[in-house]
């Protein structure tokens, strides 16, 4: 446990150093790049001193760590506001989307995997396999547009884009719309939030869902061939219990690990999904930051994502140990 935390801290340290050097690896003068064709010599000098680019490299690195430790992640060039504030405003939208997508992909993915594994080589298996390949290979923004066109415009079942219509009154408590709607006992808000969330969540879930269903299938098939399954059968246990207790529980171990990794992937996919669905989250903010060459913002976003992924990985490891008693003793 402690070793795991030390590892996480070291990873974070390396990430900070890497992010610090990012701004120095940009070809050309970062100040000039940020200002564009209207850069005046004075404005360039102002930005350089603002970012501390005129100081020796090691001192810059030291200052960077000092600021980071004090919760000062710098100010966005584009907006002039603290990067941490901007991140904080947009985090709930992305987290809500990612968590729902993850839930969809875990539940549906595992279920599909189980169905496929029941009769390997059968028709169900074949069709589910084809769907997974489709889900893995279709570009996410294209799928998003298709869903918008079909379910939004043609059928009119869902709103085309946005997180919540301006017509629905909403007083944020936690910033998570679904959670707030439950806390505020507001069914309209819940329905509106969910209808906006549905298409983007499905879009974002396709890749991890396909991966998880394939993984569950193969892992389950491996487990069902194991010796202890034969032993259980010999003991006369019912097929259903064998499947659930001995098969599925063991088969889910790699799936749990993979789910942790998927969370990192989801955050990447969120950038594309948020763009299509006009989702006011971190992903789009990062796109704007990169397009606007807003280095402090990009640095902040990268660190934020790294921290998020390290946290998820650590939690995944802990869950893994909880499910698999063998790992507990090894610590």
């Amino acid at each position, binding site marked *: 446990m402690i070793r795991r935390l030390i590892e996480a801290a070291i990873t974070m340290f390396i990430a900070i150093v890497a992010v610090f050097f990012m701004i120095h690896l940009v070809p050309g003068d970062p100040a000039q790049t940020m200002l564009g064709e209207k*850069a005046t010599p004075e404005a360039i000098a102002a930005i350089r001193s603002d970012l501390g680019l005129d100081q020796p490299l090691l001192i810059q690195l030291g200052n960077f760590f000092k600021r980071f430790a004090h919760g000062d992640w710098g100010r966005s060039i584009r907006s002039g506001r603290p990067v941490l504030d901007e991140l904080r405003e947009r985090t709930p939208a992305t987290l809500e989307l990612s968590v729902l997508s993850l839930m969809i992909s875990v539940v549906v993915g595992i279920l599909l995997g189980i169905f496929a594994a029941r009769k390997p080589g059968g028709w169900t298996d074949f069709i589910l396999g084809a769907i997974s390949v489709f889900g893995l290979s279709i570009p996410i923004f294209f799928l998003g547009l298709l869903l918008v066109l079909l379910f939004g415009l043609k059928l009119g079942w869902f709103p085309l884009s946005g997180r919540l219509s301006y017509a629905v009154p909403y007083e944020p408590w936690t910033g998570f719309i679904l959670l707030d709607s439950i806390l505020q006992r507001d069914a309209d808000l819940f329905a509106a939030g969910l209808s906006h969330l549905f298409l983007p969540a499905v879009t974002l879930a396709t890749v991890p869902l396909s991966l998880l269903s394939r993984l569950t299938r193969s892992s389950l098939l491996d487990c069902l061939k194991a010796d202890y399954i034969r032993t259980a059968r010999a003991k006369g246990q019912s097929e259903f219990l064998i499947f659930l207790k001995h098969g599925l529980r063991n088969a889910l171990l790699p799936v749990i690990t993979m789910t942790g990794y998927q969370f990192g992937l989801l955050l990447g996919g969120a950038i594309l999904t948020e763009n299509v669905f006009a989702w006011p989250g971190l992903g789009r903010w990062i796109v704007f930051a990169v397009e606007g060459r807003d280095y402090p913002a990009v640095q902040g976003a990268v660190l934020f994502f790294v921290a998020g992924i390290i946290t998820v990985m650590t939690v995944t490891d802990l869950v893994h140990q909880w499910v698999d008693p063998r790992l507990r003793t090894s610590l």
Partner: protein
Amino acid sequence: MRKVFATFVFLLLAAMAGLSGCKNKKTTVSNSTYDRPLVFARPSDSIDFDLARAEEGESITIGINFIERLIDFKDGSAELIPSLATSWEISKDGKTYTFHLRSKVVFHDGTPLNADAVVFNVERQWKKDHPAYSFSAPYSYWENMGMDQVLESVRKVDDLTVEFKLKYPFSPFLSAIATPFLSVESPTAILKYGKTIDQHPVGTGPYTLKTWKKDDFMELEAFPDYWGTKPKIKRVIVRVIPDNQVRLLELKKGSVHIMVYPNLSDLADIKNDPNIQVLSQPGLDIGYLAFNLKKPPLDKLEVRQAISMAIDRKRIVDELFQGYASVAKNMLPPTVMGYNSDVPQIKYDVEKAKTLLDKAGIRDLSLELWAMPVARPYNPNAKKMAEFIQADLKRVGINSKIVSYDWGTYLDKIGKGEGQVVIIGWNGDNNDPDNFLFTVWSKESALRTPTNNYAFYMNEDVNNWLKQGRTETKLELRADLYKKVQMQMYKDLPGLPINHSVVVVPIRKEVEGFALMPTGDRRFANVSFRSSP
């Protein structure tokens, strides 16, 4: 495992039970077009509503609905009209500007508009010891317009009269006063909000900012105590929808009424939609080729003329801009004061270009054609444009190599004179010819490093006219100076004007009164729905 599952089911049931007992909100439906919200969609959000320092377009073009200035532009044009000032006088020597303020105007927070408020808004950008200076510093517009060098003093004459004294006559001053950075915001609000004033615009405008969900939407509400014609629509929703196609689909569905920045390739489809019309207007920009006069043989006029005649700019406009641009002949957009329509257009003429090269004794010429790496309103794809030009030049026997760097390096290198034939352009900060011509083509600019004068063009006559243009206060005389500049630049050809972009805005046909402004401002005060929705 079982316990976790049970807990989960319990929570779910509890949530559902909670929801079933909840209140039902009633939505009121009104037939009045005043109460019907107008939805406007754009690809990115505003970031900064302190117009004194805001530089980014989406902030300024929406911010002008909240915050006004002394002088404004007439709807849909570049003509100056009274706004918070009802009238103004310029002294004979061109050094004193006196503005008479409109009476009984209040800011959104109830603060009355008076001379003190105007002085406050000027001094907070100017005097480093002003209590509000540090809130939004640095004020780059103030600096870029050289206000420190121009302004001698600003003072309150009486409650409704403000007087600006300049150090020397500076005729772009009136344009500067009409530029958003000299907007008048409530001094009370500025002192109240401090550094976060950029998130709380409090002006005298027809709309107030009611809610702002970052990167999502903002809600503008009509200001009941507005001094001018009251807005025809109570609520305007400004949405952010980054994907151009999704934005268009929302427009088609009718959930959005006005959208900006469509894909040019979608326009044919948009035009077939019976519910949508497409408004268009020339943009306030110029895309051009700069010939670096320090790099032989570009110092020879015949070579520059030959290159200019060899390039088929009509084809570039048709294919690269899908027709949504116009071929330029001046370095000034046609909507700007002083545009010289008498300047002849350089004709596309391959044979004449070859003859000119022969006359100059140039054979086997190889050039570097510099293409910028980023898309700009005046040039969506410079590398593609470079390929067109490369093919055209080949036809007259000039070999060219396309050179490109990342944006920062590109600007740095061309700004230091390393470029040869350079693809670049300019977006106007305001409607003043000085902003297009002096800032880029003056000797002063050429002598700075990095410069904007990528051709290193230093014609003494042109430079004198440009300097006179800054001090001449008579509009016609000023316009004549700029006309002379353009004619001389046509003769000297330090650069080839390529195109002005065309701004296209698809809107629903039930919406009327939306005027496209040369500055790109989105004004909602005069927009309304046709009576039957």
